[in-house]
């Protein structure tokens, strides 16, 4: 199987600061890949660089097309949905309006209606709260809303930036279960950035460990899990 996304020698940063120093990784169609690392390792920046939200250089190929010169709006048009850190929900709008915005680029009304049903099935709580202002939802509900909004694009690749951030363990488990379901049902590929290595390695089939802007360990999740360094520094046993 060919790679859906391949990144070669990616450098990126903000202003004069360089955060990524030549990152290389690949992601296969339908797979879930995790990027692990500590605070400030460059995980979030990696996702932003893929989307064109920050200054970057290097080769980014998505589905055989170079996307490293595209702005965010155009990357989205290729089917890359980004669930940003901090969730990025539209707080003043209702949950349903948030989902409508997720489907902003789609013209197939029937398909969109179908996807509304799908995400409400995946996240029944959002259906209950659909006419509520997003800003008043709980943290977990907002995370669900952010994921659901991304799904409304019917993306080929889902970029997830720390979906566990700031949430209670039970909610996190629920969200991760749902992510697995989504991956199995729709075959959407996922690139997951996570500090919580245990969670991420359970969900993902491949993983990369990033330290100060470079990939230091990579491989199948099982291999990475067994790695001595990872075990000691990130899994804690």
């Amino acid at each position, binding site marked *: 199987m060919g790679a859906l996304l391949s990144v070669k020698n990616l450098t990126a940063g903000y202003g004069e600061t360089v955060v990524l120093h030549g990152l290389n990784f690949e992601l296969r169609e339908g797979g879930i890949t995790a990027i692990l690392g500590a605070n400030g390792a460059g995980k979030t920046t990696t996702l932003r660089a893929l989307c064109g939200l920050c200054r970057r250089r290097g080769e980014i190929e998505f589905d055989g097309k170079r996307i490293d010169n595209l702005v965010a709006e155009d990357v*989205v048009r290729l089917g890359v949905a*980004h669930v*940003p850190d901090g969730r990025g929900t539209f*707080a003043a*709008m209702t949950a349903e309006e948030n989902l409508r915005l997720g489907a902003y680029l789609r013209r197939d009304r029937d398909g969109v209606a179908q996807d509304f049903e799908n995400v409400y099935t995946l996240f029944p709580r959002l259906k209950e709260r659909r006419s509520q202002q997003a800003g*008043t939802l709980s943290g977990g509900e*907002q995370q669900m809303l952010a994921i659901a909004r991304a799904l409304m694009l019917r993306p080929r690749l889902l970029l997830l930036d720390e979906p566990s951030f700031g949430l209670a363990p039970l909610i996190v488990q629920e969200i991760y279960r749902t992510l697995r379901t989504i991956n199995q049902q729709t075959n959407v590929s996922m690139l997951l950035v996570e500090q919580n290595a245990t969670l991420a390695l359970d969900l993902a089939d491949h993983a990369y460990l990033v330290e100060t802007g470079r990939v230091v360990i990579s491989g199948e999740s099982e291999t990475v899990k067994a790695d001595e360094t990872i075990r000691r520094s990130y899994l804690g046993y």
Partner: protein
Amino acid sequence: MDALLHQIFSGIASGGIYAGLALALVMIYQSTGHINFAQGEMAMFSTYIAWELIDYGTPYWGAFFLTIVFAFAAGVAIERLVIRPFHNLPVIALIIVFIGLLVVVNSTASWIFGTTLKTFPSPFPSEPLWNNHYISNHELGSIGVVLIIVAILFVFFRYTTLGLAMRAVAENPISSRLVGIRVSWMLALGWGLAAAIGAVSGMLVAPILYLDSSMMGGVLIYSLAGAILGGLDNPWGAAVGGFIIGIMENVLGAYVIGTQLKFSVALIVIVVVLLLRPAGLFGRTVVTRV
């Protein structure tokens, strides 16, 4: 009693004017979160264009719609050329730029079109309906036009994808880009629509106040008061606020504080509303979790 009714009706009439410009202010506020202090001047300038077109022999409605098109294009152009370069700067810099724009448009108008008062035609018949002596046809017509604009805007923002996208951009530009909205064009579109609405309000004001480069100065203050009273994020609210301000201005001006202090009505309304209910009477108060 008859005198009071008179005041109320002329209040409603001027309220219609304020409502019109208030809608333009709401347009830009909705899409960018800014209050365009130059809105009144842009409307005044567009009205001069209409005047020139009519003077040239264009039929009224032809001139009306051509002016709307001109105003829309000018609004888009101003956003792209003047406002856009400042999108990263703090609010205060932008306020200064709005003021610079106000000064430029105002003085350019009196430079090009002169400083003499000009009469501006009304599209509505001059014989008042049912022979009433409370309200003229032009005033009634203006109110009608404003209500139509309100209805269009309401539907636009609530139910169309484009309207939703414009609101999204105002709230969170980065998330908007991540769902594929072309943010910069939305902002320009907001300015274009606002300028178009402003042009309509200018063309409705001009038959009453006479066309002159300072025509919209006072109107802007009352419209701001109206928009704030009704809620800056809500076209209906802003329009209703405009009407309330018009009535208050006339009734309070006639009976309570005297016509000399009319502006203080606007001041008091703005301060009181902002203190008691900053989102306005009909605005949504947004609650955000921390």
